[in-house]
């Protein structure tokens, strides 16, 4: 498109003299599509939050606030929710936003080929009441529904249909894969997939402008050392993430500042509880000790989480006691203590379970998925070895890792979980429910953890309107999982961004980078 015109159009990857309001940033992953309904992944949704908007959005403190809907209320005693839409909103191409676009975006995002479909599993119907009123009906009372659709982004019906993009096409791509037409504060002015994406402010944006950016550019940079070098040499204004080990040094250097926070992602160890035998190590084929809750508890006492946090995480991470971080809704304050590091207790528990001399097993680990994942697994390996549990560590790239987990090729594994809804119900649904394909439950419960009470609690939690009662049930679930050591939650992954000293911005715990909160001084 633009390429054809531009004999001399200069594509600036890092620019010569950078104007004050130009902003370039680098991240590890390029958003693979500009279609907000095609792929439900953090790099895509995070980036597109700058371009598209939903009915509601998350503020600087992660709270839900009005966006394209000005207000909403439950209707019909748990039947659903009514959203009143903002008037006078225009898409980037100038067309206006109304209830038809909401209905269209529902149909588009809940379609079989849309990766965002799971968000709408509680929805039974969407009704247009008038041009600026929409009712979303749910199959059961759903108190957290507005929270769950913060990333459901509105697409213009006319634009999508005119460009043959009425449905997302993940396999072959379509116009909406490469082009965007949202209502957000920024519009995509140039896009070279995998290389660079240029954004400029949307002049007709409805909101109050906080930023002072005239042009912004995103470049993916894979190698962490290269990204750090780019930040230090001023070639980019911001990088995410800063390698944890470099944070301190960068913070101490003159031109760069480091912004730290805690991500929503909890890193944990999972243990095979379904398999009758061990699959790896010298004890391969022998009965699986991890079926015994005492052995799992021994693991939780043998892992020295404070040491991991102090050295590998360099004091940037917080310990985790349950499957969600304290910043999430429904976090169980009653169960905030994690098992203490106590090798003697771990050995005692092992002896009690009938393994006084320990045993040997296999630990699977990704080496490019979570921050310093391989180093953490190595440390875990040596900590477990000290109490007699000898792990055979197998670290691999994530593209090989998930297939291994799906094929049940592990005795123990590392997993990170970030609840898409920012609510404690989410990991119960995906990680702790007994796997059930029909009900779409426990789809990431590789461990095969199963507890009837948890399974019974989940639907009750999902439909409970009363906040206190709901929290009581979440507390109960958290306690059960702690008592049985369903998983060994270790820490909440830190969030470390680096920027030039002249940049001010807000870091959100979901690791979304929101450009409209950036200003270049």
């Amino acid at each position, binding site marked *: 498109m633009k390429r054809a015109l531009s004999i001399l159009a200069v594509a600036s990857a890092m620019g010569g003299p950078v104007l004050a309001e130009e902003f370039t940033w680098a991240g590890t992953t390029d958003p693979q599509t500009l279609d907000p309904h095609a792929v439900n992944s953090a790099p895509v949704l995070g980036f597109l939050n700058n371009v598209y908007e939903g009915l509601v959005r998350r503020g600087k403190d992660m709270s839900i606030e009005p966006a394209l809907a000005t207000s909403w209320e439950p209707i019909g005693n748990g039947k659903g929710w009514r959203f009143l839409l903002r008037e006078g909103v225009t898409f980037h191409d100038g067309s206006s936003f109304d209830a038809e676009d909401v209905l269209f975006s529902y149909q588009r995002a809940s379609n079989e080929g849309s990766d965002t479909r799971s968000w709408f599993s509680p929805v039974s119907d969407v009704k247009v009441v008038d041009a600026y009123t929409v009712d979303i009906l749910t199959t059961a009372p759903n108190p957290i529904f507005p929270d769950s659709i913060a990333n459901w982004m509105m697409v213009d019906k006319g634009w999508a249909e005119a460009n043959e993009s009425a449905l997302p096409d993940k396999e072959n791509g379509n116009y909406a894969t490469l082009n965007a037409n949202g209502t957000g504060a920024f519009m995509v002015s140039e896009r070279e997939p995998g290389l660079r994406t240029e954004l400029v402010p949307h002049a007709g944006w409805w909101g109050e402008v906080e930023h002072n950016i005239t042009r912004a550019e995103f470049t993916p940079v894979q190698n*962490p*050392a290269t990204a*750090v*070098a780019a930040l*230090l040499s001023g070639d980019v204004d911001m990088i995410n993430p800063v*390698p944890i*080990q*470099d944070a*301190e*040094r*960068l913070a101490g250097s003159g031109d760069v500042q480091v912004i730290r926070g805690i991500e929503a992602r909890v890193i944990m160890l999972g243990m095979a509880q379904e398999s009758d035998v061990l*699959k*790896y*190590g*010298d004890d*391969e084929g022998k009965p699986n000790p991890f079926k015994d809750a005492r052995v799992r508890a021994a693991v939780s006492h043998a892992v*020295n989480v404070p*040491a*991991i946090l*102090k*050295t*590998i995480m360099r004091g940037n991470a917080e310990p985790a006691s349950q499957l969600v971080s304290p910043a999430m809704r429904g976090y169980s304050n009653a169960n905030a203590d994690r098992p203490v590091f106590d090798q003697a207790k771990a050995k005692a528990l092992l002896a009690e379970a009938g393994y006084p001399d320990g045993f040997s097993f*296999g630990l699977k680990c990704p*080496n*490019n998925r979570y921050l310093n994942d*391989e*180093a953490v697994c*190595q*440390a875990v*390996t*040596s*900590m477990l*070895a*000290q109490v007699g549990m*000898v*792990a*055979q*560590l*197998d*670290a*691999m*790239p994530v593209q090989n890792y998930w297939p291994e987990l799906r094929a049940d090729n592990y005795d123990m594994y590392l997993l990170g979980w970030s609840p898409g809804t920012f609510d404690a119900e989410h990991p119960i649904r995906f990680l702790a429910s007994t796997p059930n394909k029909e009900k779409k439950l426990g789809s990431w419960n590789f461990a095969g953890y199963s507890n009837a009470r948890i399974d019974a609690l989940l639907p009750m939690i999902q439909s409970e309107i009363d906040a206190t009662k709901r929290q009581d049930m979440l507390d109960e679930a958290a306690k059960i999982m702690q008592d049985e050591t369903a998983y060994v939650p270790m820490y909440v992954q830190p969030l470390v961004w680096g920027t030039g000293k002249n940049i001010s911005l807000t870091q959100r715990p979901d690791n979304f980078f929101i450009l409209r909160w950036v200003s270049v001084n």
Partner: protein
Amino acid sequence: MSDQTSQSAPKSMFARAWDSDFAYNFRRTPVAVGSAFVVALLVLSAIFAPLIAPHNPFDPASLDLMNGFTAPMAANEFTGDVFWLGTDDQGRDVFSTILYGMRISLFVGFSAVLFAMVLGITLGLIAGYVGGWIETIIMRAADVQLTFPAILVAMLIFGVAKGITPIEHQDKMAIWVLILAIGLSDWVQFARVVRGATLVEKDKEYVQAARMIGRGKGIIMLRHILPNVLSPVLVIATISLALAIIAEATLSFLGVGAPPTQPSLGTLIRIGQGFLFSGEWWIILFPSVTLLSLALSVNLLGDWLRDALNPRLQ
């Protein structure tokens, strides 16, 4: 001198290699003595690593994470332990880890080059001397092989090996896969150069003479042609040894190297590069310097060996 080269070279090369000229030449070349000393020192300390190293970095139970990132010769702030060359992110003693890592690197390097050399020379000689459809097949196979970057070859072999190796042997598999992958990606160089040189050599008078007196193809190839194509082979083998060690590091950078729990020198450097900006310079410096001295000495020694063994340069 060189007027007698063509007829008598093959025989005299081996003889000359072991008579006093060779030793004398070695003694009066300081670079050769120096690099031989460094190589010997490094190889010996690798072989005897379990006796020399103060810790066993491959034993996970002996590591204390709290010892992590201890600077060289400084006491750790939590445990008070002191390490010569400091510790890495897992609290492993860098000195011991280098010694153990060098064992793996040297083993992978030597085995891979040996494998590549035997394979490449054999196929190159056959292709160059026999010619015909055999040559076509070999050289086209070389084309296919060259098309695949070493990384890919390694990944393929890794994948296949993973599929066919029984689960309990998988941790020992990585090293052999590396040897196979690096060796396989390297044989073509030997084959092409040997074939090129063989094409030139095979019509020279001495080969024709040998043919006329009725010597068999195998004998001619081994006894007459091979010694005369060794010069370029040695150049490549020299660099290949260092290269194989470095290739292992590169593969590790791309995620298919030696396992992190039993790191090679290359894996150590890969891990260390993550700490280049953070101030823990010792984690990358010492393994790099070791690798550099090893590769450099091997190369220098190879340089000298080539000159000394080459009958035409005597």
